[in-house]
């Protein structure tokens, strides 16, 4: 059965990214949308689009029944789940298969095995990968507080409470001492239930000042598993990645190969197919520990694409339709140059990163050499309150890390979003931090630095900014008043001879 039309069970930038791959492969696309997303870019980009009706994720992008109805109605023969929403939901993958649809991702049993952090951990142990000490079974909502306390004490403090079904820092809490455990578990369970529909959590010993490094891999249905050069994702705010890069700075070839081997072994042990990522913690001595597996495409997949030249989404589709991986394993592990990604959020970094949904009233997106723009929004779009606040991803490539960093800074200077605050000023600050420039990263450094700064603005307003704003305000008020009285605009008037001469005279002074 040839694959002709793919339903993209997602929204925003990742839905657009997937549709681009479909277009390039000559495949039809079907979008789904909530009420507030009717004018969203992913809806208008699709060949066809169908309403989910409603807005809350639980009424829309998490509704398996509605999505399968639309697949049937539209004649789609495959489903790409993107990331988030139903991407790691084995019931959705199973329902797709039962409806006769190709699910572009691993099989439901592998999602179940690797999606649960606890069974994934077992799988990693069985494959010989090192793991961080932690609970062996999920701490489900029916486990009483006393038992919760006993389990945590056995793991030891500081520890992390994490959602079994989690990802993206949601449903995750750090607990430094026994006293705050029960509260943290309650919040994590509630967040996990809201975000993933599953309140189960687990505990894991906290590695101090760890780096978060992950291995992307592709696995076909014929037993070939290819691990890729690592991604460094240590720049995190409250366990949420904000900047990712590939390759990791200060990372030896030997460490890369050992980590890639460990990741491939886990994937093979799990019977993994399609694209997936194995996340590791790396401690100060370069020892690494299996953290979890993401059984889907990741937000940060473009940095891998930029340094290896491999289109991961096209390969997801090719693998799903049964093709063999023909990539060179050596090339997948050999980075060409360096790539950095900034996740642009509709948040006000100077107001403790408060989400700031609202209408984008003006927009200028960077371009030119080494810049890739993966955006989910356009001018005029109202960023809704219901979903994740990420609106776009900006990726910069350079022959080395420093060139990539300088290109990113150049591109950030070209980027303008009007109407709502975004995290762009934060990135301009972050990329100039000495520790970032040196590549000395760990997952705790950003939170520590933010606490130290106590709300100091990321890009301070200088006198030059104030003066330009003053001139702009005065000029625009003046031009508006003049427009109201005259029909013609100033710039369109013909230049008189003497005026031209006077100007040239001024220039020649």
């Amino acid at each position, binding site marked *: 059965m040839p694959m002709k039309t793919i339903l993209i069970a997602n929204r925003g930038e990742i839905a657009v990214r997937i549709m681009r791959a479909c277009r390039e492969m000559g495949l039809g696309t079907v979008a789904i949308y909530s009420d507030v997303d009717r004018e969203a870019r992913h809806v208008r980009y699709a060949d066809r689009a169908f309403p989910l009706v409603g807005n809350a994720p639980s009424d829309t992008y998490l509704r398996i029944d509605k999505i399968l109805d639309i697949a049937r109605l539209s004649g789609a023969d495959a489903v790409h789940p993107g990331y988030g929403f139903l991407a790691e939901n084995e019931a959705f993958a199973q329902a797709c298969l039962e409806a006769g649809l190709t699910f572009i991702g691993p099989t439901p049993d592998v999602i179940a095995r690797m999606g649960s952090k606890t069974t994934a951990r077992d799988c990693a142990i069985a494959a010989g990968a090192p793991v961080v000490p932690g609970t062996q079974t999920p701490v489900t909502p029916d486990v009483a507080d006393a038992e919760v306390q006993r389990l945590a004490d056995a793991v030891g403090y500081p520890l992390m409470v994490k959602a079994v079904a989690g990802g993206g820092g949601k449903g995750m809490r750090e607990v430094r001492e026994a006293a705050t455990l029960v509260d943290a578990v309650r919040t994590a369970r509630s967040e996990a239930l809201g975000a993933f529909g599953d309140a189960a959590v687990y505990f894991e010993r906290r590695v101090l000042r760890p780096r978060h490094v992950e291995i992307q891999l592709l696995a076909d249905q014929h037993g070939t598993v290819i691990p890729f050069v690592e991604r460094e994702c240590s720049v995190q705010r409250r366990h949420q990645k904000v900047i990712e890069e590939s390759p990791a700075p200060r990372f030896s070839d030997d460490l890369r190969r050992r980590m890639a081997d460990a990741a491939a072994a886990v994937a093979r042990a799990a019977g993994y197919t399609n694209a997936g990522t194995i996340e590791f913690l790396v401690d100060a001595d370069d020892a690494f520990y299996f953290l979890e597996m993401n059984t889907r495409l990741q937000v940060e997949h473009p940095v891998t694409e930029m340094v290896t030249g491999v289109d991961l989404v096209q390969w997801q589709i090719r693998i799903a339709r049964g093709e063999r991986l023909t990539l060179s394993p050596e090339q997948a592990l050999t980075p060409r140059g360096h790539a950095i990604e900034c996740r642009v959020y509709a948040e006000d970094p100077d107001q403790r990163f408060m*989400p700031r949904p609202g209408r984008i009233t*003006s927009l200028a997106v960077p371009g030119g050499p080494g810049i890739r723009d993966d955006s989910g929004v356009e001018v005029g779009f109202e960023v809704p*309150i219901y979903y994740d606040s990420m609106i776009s991803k900006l990726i910069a490539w350079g022959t080395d890390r420093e060139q990539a960093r300088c290109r990113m800074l150049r591109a950030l*200077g070209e980027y303008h979003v009007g109407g709502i605050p975004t995290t762009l000023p934060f990135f301009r600050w972050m990329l100039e931090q000495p520790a970032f420039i040196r590549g000395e990263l760990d997952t705790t450094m950003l939170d520590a630095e933010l606490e130290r700064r106590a709300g100091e603005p990321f890009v301070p307003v200088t006198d030059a900014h104030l003066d330009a704003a003053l001139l702009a305000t*005065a*000029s625009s*008020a003046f*031009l508006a008043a003049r427009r109201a009285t005259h029909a013609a605009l*100033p710039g369109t008037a013909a230049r008189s001879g003497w005026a031209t001469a006077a*100007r040239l005279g001024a220039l020649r002074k």
Partner: protein
Amino acid sequence: MRLHIEQGGRVRQVTVSSGALPGEVALHLDDTVLVCDVRDLGHGRLSLRLPDGSMRDVVVEMDPIPGHRTVHVQGVRVPTMASTRVRRGASGVAAHAGPLRIVAPMPGKVVRLPVRPGDRVEAHQPVVVIEAMKMENALSAGRAGTVREVLVQEGMSVEAGRPLVVLE
């Protein structure tokens, strides 16, 4: 045209007139005259050329409050207020006295209200928690005070700009 422009708590008087050349605007500011080449690119976008040849692309966004603007300059947002009349009493940007209204900075749902009327709160102590975009956001007062009024209830959906709590 005479304007009173307020930025960061400071008010400056500017007199604006047409320059000698097309596109030029002369700004009289204190004792100086700055002749800038200003082009209106539409939709609030302006291209400024300063007297030394420096280029500034700016975007002037009109805020909902009359006279208030957000001016984007080189990636920085500068709140600015312009008025043709002298404002009486406390200035809009620099106001500090009197009751403090904590308003919703974005649309969302009130999920927690940790204070009640009469409670004493410290600066930076959370007074309302709003959920938006899957995140809980604690709103706090910039200064210490006493809660005079709580204008919303837990579970309520609120629009951006809606007053939530009044301190005095």
